[in-house]
């Protein structure tokens, strides 16, 4: 089982994600440059955090036109588990794989702190080892992290159970407090918080176990014994 971690110019959480996948959860992980073709033997894809293209124009929009995104879209249609974290979430939204928009935080500040999110859908490939309403202590670090969707889109997200995580506290003015969503099929998940910075006890001042279950969910999905 192999996970591709896509690297864009300006990604800076790619190595952290690669480390957690390979060293902590013992999944084979491969860094893939955004202009390369997606390798054939891939079972899951992660779009990591960072500042692709320096957030020029709008966070994620230029990376969404990268050549590899065509392959990512094809795999999304086939049902492959795809996770976008922070800038990866922004890229998934800008590429049209997930609905909505990520706007500047209402504080206009770059936020870097620990918070808690609540699991609202535990049926996705990245949440199936978590309990519904389970709280996850997790790091957030973003400037354009305020999830926004219009009322019609929000109603559809609720109807289709696409709201995956909400914040336990008000952090950035996101619609319905949304921290992460999925596509309608549930295989593509985007989240602003950073599970790769939260899944090891040595770097999480709170409880790292819930965040580690995001990765254990992926192991479970791929049929790997955790």
């Amino acid at each position, binding site marked *: 089982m192999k996970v591709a971690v896509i690297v864009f110019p300006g990604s800076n959480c790619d190595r952290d994600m690669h480390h957690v996948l390979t060293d902590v959860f013992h999944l084979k992980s491969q860094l893939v440059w955004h202009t390369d073709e997606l390798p054939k033997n891939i079972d899951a894809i992660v779009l990591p955090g960072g500042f692709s293209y320096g957030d020029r*124009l*709008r966070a994620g*929009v230029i990376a*969404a*036109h990268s050549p590899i995104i065509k392959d990512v879209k094809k795999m999304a249609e086939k049902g492959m588990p795809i996770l976008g974290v922070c800038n990866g979430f922004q890229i998934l939204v*800008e590429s049209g794989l997930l*609905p*909505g*928009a990520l*706007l*500047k935080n*209402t*504080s*206009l500040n770059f936020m870097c702190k620990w918070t808690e999110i609540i699991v609202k859908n535990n049926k996705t490939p990245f949440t199936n080892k978590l309990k519904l309403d389970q709280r996850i202590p997790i790091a957030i670090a973003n400037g354009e992290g305020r999830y*926004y*969707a*219009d009322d019609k*889109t929000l109603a559809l997200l609720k109807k289709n159970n696409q709201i995956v995580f909400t914040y336990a506290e008000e952090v950035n*003015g996101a619609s319905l407090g949304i921290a992460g969503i999925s596509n309608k099929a549930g295989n593509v998940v985007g989240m602003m918080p950073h599970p790769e910075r939260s899944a090891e006890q040595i770097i999480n001042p709170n409880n790292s176990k819930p965040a580690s279950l995001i990765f254990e969910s992926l192991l479970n999905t791929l049929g790997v014994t955790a």
Partner: protein
Amino acid sequence: MPSFKVNVIIENKPEIVDPEGDTILNDLILKDKKTSIKKVRSAKMLRFVIDAKNKESAEKTVLTICNQFRIFNPLVSKVSVETLGA
């Protein structure tokens, strides 16, 4: 073929909260009691310099590019163009 400067103004829709515009209004303008100012909305402006046969053709090409490359997110933003002439 003449060259045109086409300004593309990307502005969030009225229902989108605009903390930057609100801060400029509340913490700068209204603090100086310029109460005739009722609203400030922030926006992004891009200037395209384009060779085209006329103004209409220049604006059409620029708007097509804006849509093709998702220069603005249609869910939250609207776009308008103004041409500064040849």
